[in-house]
């Protein structure tokens, strides 16, 4: 009896781990070949679920035919993603394909939602459910099928990669795309094959999981991608058999986490495990240490570009116009611009960290949350005046943010992105679960408005002016830093951290400095946002905001200060301008993003 529940937790962990493994296998396959974390994988999984649903509902297909249709449908989708969305980006900057997959994911999710409605749908289990008693619980036929498909596909893939000619070509491409091409490997065909296989697998995963829960909805993709990526990371980036192990281990960790602390802590455990693995065994648990130092990636990190040099009078003129805008009577415009400028504080921070220093952070919104909560709690619990609390929140965010990101400082490339994604999630979950400090799910209510010297700023203009002044101030400061030796050192780290370190640039130290400065700006931004809204909770600054901030930064041009502000304002205004398109506006947004990555990867104003 002592062991009883733990056996159950173990079985449950393995069952959910199965599902993660299935997702991770597809992600690992794509990463192995294209060196790309496919953020659209969860969307393909969702599309698979809906193809299955449509075929069962409208065609009344039996399970084998349903699965076949899903495999064909998602395989073709995978080919389309590779062919239309990604191939043209080959040889461009490393982050262009990553962002493209984010854009593709957005478009696919929106299409599913438009075609199939946002309502959850029942996806009946066609297998029939026979249940077997194990320990105190049961497992069903579907559990076994999911496990079988996960392990079977990994085994098949392994054999395919080892023993077939195409498999050999895939491995050759994975090793070195250019060399493989010179050896006569048709790498385009290889990439296409891999996307087809991985997407078919993802689709099958979607339909099986949908049947498992008898519930599918268009929003299931983000979580699927997230867990799949974590599982893949644990198994080792691009390691197909490792992905199975990673998935199972993730499932077990979550299950034991729930056993110990309850359901709200499951993701906290998942992401803590992720960070632990990243720090202790960055190549995954099942991969031998990488034996050769990585290839130099000189100049490939960001698109080569010559930044557009805006004449100073133009920038100054724009600031003056912006400052005079409130004199026109346009509160809606002002509120939208205020939102845009608040986002600009985040974008300025991210363009420094991701653009100038090259640390693509996918959890940057967590800095806003820290700033917002810090200032909010100082005001509510300690009675600090807001004009003191906001700068204090900036400092707290700088310190806490740098501390939190510390484990990620010695990581590179994709690892940084995944680690920051995990850290961002951890911050949100700690806010949710640390009820004693943060009031948990209830959020902070009744936050006082921003103030200066005892005067409350409540009108939309005064807040606008305040935020505009902050943006201009931080932008000027940031520009000054960029023109100093710090700017040089930061950009050198981005371009080639090995070369930079060889010339005495202590990469960790300078990365930390960038996070500290960036953390201050973002923290102030989060604090002001909190006081303007008067209410924040753990979802106010969500993961989607982190992704949005990154697209702002890319749009403006990595590292480009004016670009970041422009990107923030444009991307805040764009959905507002697309309001007439109502249902279609997020679709339009996704398409604009994709076109931008395709035709102007260096952003509007160019990388600095």
């Amino acid at each position, binding site marked *: 009896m002592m062991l009883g529940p733990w056996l159950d*937790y173990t079985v*449950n962990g393995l069952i*959910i781990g199965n599902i993660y493994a299935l997702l991770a296998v597809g992600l690992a396959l794509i990463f192995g070949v294209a060196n790309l974390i496919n953020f659209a994988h969860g969307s393909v999984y969702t599309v698979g679920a809906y193809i299955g649903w449509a075929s069962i509902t409208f065609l009344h297909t039996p399970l084998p035919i349903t699965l076949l249709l899903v495999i064909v449908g998602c395989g073709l989708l995978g080919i389309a993603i590779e062919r239309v969305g990604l191939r043209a980006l080959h040889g461009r900057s490393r982050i262009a394909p990553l962002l493209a997959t984010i854009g593709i994911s957005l478009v696919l999710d*929106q299409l599913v939602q438009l075609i199939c*409605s*946002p*309502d*959850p749908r*029942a996806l009946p289990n066609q297998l029939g459910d026979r*249940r077997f*008693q194990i320990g*105190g*619980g*049961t497992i*069903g036929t579907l559990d076994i099928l999911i496990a079988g498909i996960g392990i079977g596909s990994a085994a098949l893939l392994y054999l395919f990669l080892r023993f077939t000619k195409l498999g050999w070509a895939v491995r050759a491409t994975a090793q070195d795309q250019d060399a493989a091409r010179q050896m006569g490997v048709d790498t385009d065909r290889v990439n296409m094959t891999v996307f087809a296989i991985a997407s078919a697998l993802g689709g099958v995963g979607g339909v099986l999981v949908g049947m498992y829960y*008898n*519930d599918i909805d268009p*929003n299931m993709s983000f979580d699927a991608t997230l867990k799949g990526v974590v599982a893949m990371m644990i198994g080792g980036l691009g390691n197909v058999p490792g992905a199975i192990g990673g998935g199972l281990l993730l499932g077990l960790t979550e*299950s034991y986490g*729930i*056993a110990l602390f*309850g*359901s*709200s802590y*499951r993701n906290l455990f998942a992401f803590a495990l992720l960070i632990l693995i990243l720090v202790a065994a960055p190549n995954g648990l099942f991969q031998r240490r990488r034996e050769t130092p990585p290839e130099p990636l000189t100049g490939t990190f960001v698109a080569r570009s010559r930044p557009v040099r805006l004449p100073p009078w133009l920038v100054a003129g724009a600031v003056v116009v912006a400052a005079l805008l409130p*004199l026109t*009577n346009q*509160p*809606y415009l002002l*509120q*939208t611009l205020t*939102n845009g400028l608040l*986002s600009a504080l985040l974008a300025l921070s991210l363009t420094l960290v991701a653009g100038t220093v090259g640390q693509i952070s996918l959890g940057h919104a967590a800095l806003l949350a820290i700033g917002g909560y810090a200032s909010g709690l100082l005001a509510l619990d300690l009675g600090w005046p807001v004009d003191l609390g906001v700068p204090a929140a900036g400092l707290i965010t700088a310190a806490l943010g740098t501390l939190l990101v510390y484990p990620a400082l010695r990581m590179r490339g994709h690892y940084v992105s995944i680690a920051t994604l995990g850290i961002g999630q951890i911050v949100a979950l700690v806010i*949710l679960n640390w009820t004693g400090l943060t009031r*948990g*799910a*209830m*959020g902070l*209510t*009744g936050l006082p*408005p921003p103030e200066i010297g005892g005067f*409350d700023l*409540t*009108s*939309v*203009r005064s807040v606008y002016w305040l935020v505009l002044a902050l943006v201009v101030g931080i932008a000027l400061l940031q520009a000054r830093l960029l023109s100093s030796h710090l700017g040089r050192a930061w950009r050198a780290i981005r371009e080639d951290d090995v070369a930079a370190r060889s010339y005495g640039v202590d990469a960790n130290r300078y990365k930390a400095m960038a996070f500290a400065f960036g953390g201050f700006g973002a923290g102030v931004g989060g604090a002001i946002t909190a006081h303007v*809204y*008067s*209410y*924040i*909770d753990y*979802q*106010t600054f969500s993961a989607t905001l982190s992704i949005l901030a990154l697209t702002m930064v890319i749009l403006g041009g990595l590292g480009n200060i004016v670009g970041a502000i422009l990107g923030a304002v444009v991307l*805040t205004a764009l959905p*507002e301008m697309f*309001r007439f398109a*109502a*249902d279609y*506006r*997020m679709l339009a947004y996704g398409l604009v993003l994709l076109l931008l990555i395709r035709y102007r990867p260096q952003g509007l104003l160019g990388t600095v």
Partner: protein
Amino acid sequence: MLDRRSLLAGAAAVGVASFARAGRAADAPAIVGVSGPITGPMAQYGAQWKASFDLALEQSKAAGGPAVDYVFEDSQADPRQSVAIAQKFVNDDRIFIEIGDFSSTASMAASPIYQRAKLVQFGMTNSHPDFTKGGDYMWSSSISQAEEQPNLADYAVNALGLKKLAVLHLNTDWGTTAKNLFVKAAQDKGADVVATEAFLPGEHDFRSTLVRIRDANPTGLVLEAYYADAAVIARQVRELGLKQPIAAVGSVYSPKLLELGGDAVNGMFTQSNFFPDDPRPEVQAFVKAFQAKYGRAPDGFNATAYDTMNLVIALVKQFSATREGIHEGLAKIKDVPSVVYGSMTFDPTTRRVAGAKFERLTVKDDKFVLWDGTKPNLG
């Protein structure tokens, strides 16, 4: 035009509301501003609202009611967008009342703007206890959990005889409030709450959580969840082999619960302030009309939205389609016919409605039916 000195002096109240406002042309329809999700993760709720608004307005028009129309701005239930929409609405002179947003996060971020502009923000789904504390322009017809939870506790503990309870609740402001109120009420009625488990929105895997619950040995489970979560939980409860009866808060009441939950939700107990088989004439009229227009049965969200639009029409008839008229009217209006409440009257101090009717329901043969008083077999 606002002069800068008074602004710097912190003339807080001189907000956007004081901007010169052109009078509305007499023949233009009065417009309700709706801020809610049409895209994004909560888009289905916006779609449900629309269906009911359209039905209510159509009926009012056919009956020669006042010229009222609505504009629906998509916020994705995102505070960044709901505040922009708020500025848009408060500065649109045609708008005399605002409905929404869907989530408390989005609503409460916009509240200061509506409050300063003296435009009523009617948060029909905002159950966050602090929502109406945002100011005297924040009103809500959302079922008060303070009212519903003791009712549910009475159902579970006294009527069904469940004395050892495990509670699963959504870890949001709504779910946490509901859980706290339920636990208190159940304990007051002499029940023992042996486990409470929170889960995150979007969660699908409850197996391990249920093992914890199983090992706490409850005689019954209580769900503070929405229908989609409740369906998934119920399935996994039965898959785990747990036989205990499940009682759930009224928000699980939806035809979707039956579709998503299948066999597993048979025997689930819930209560609803809206039940299509409720013989009350206003309910039957609504269900019939909704069924005729959309070919499906309405659920609780439809009912709430339908009630709200009818309330607006009644306010316009009895008072005026102006911001001040609505604000005064809400405090004064009495006994507005309501699908959810039977009739609605607001308490002018809490700015909420009291006296929701709760029908005790159970799921039998894949249908919601009125509970016939049979206690579950506690084996």
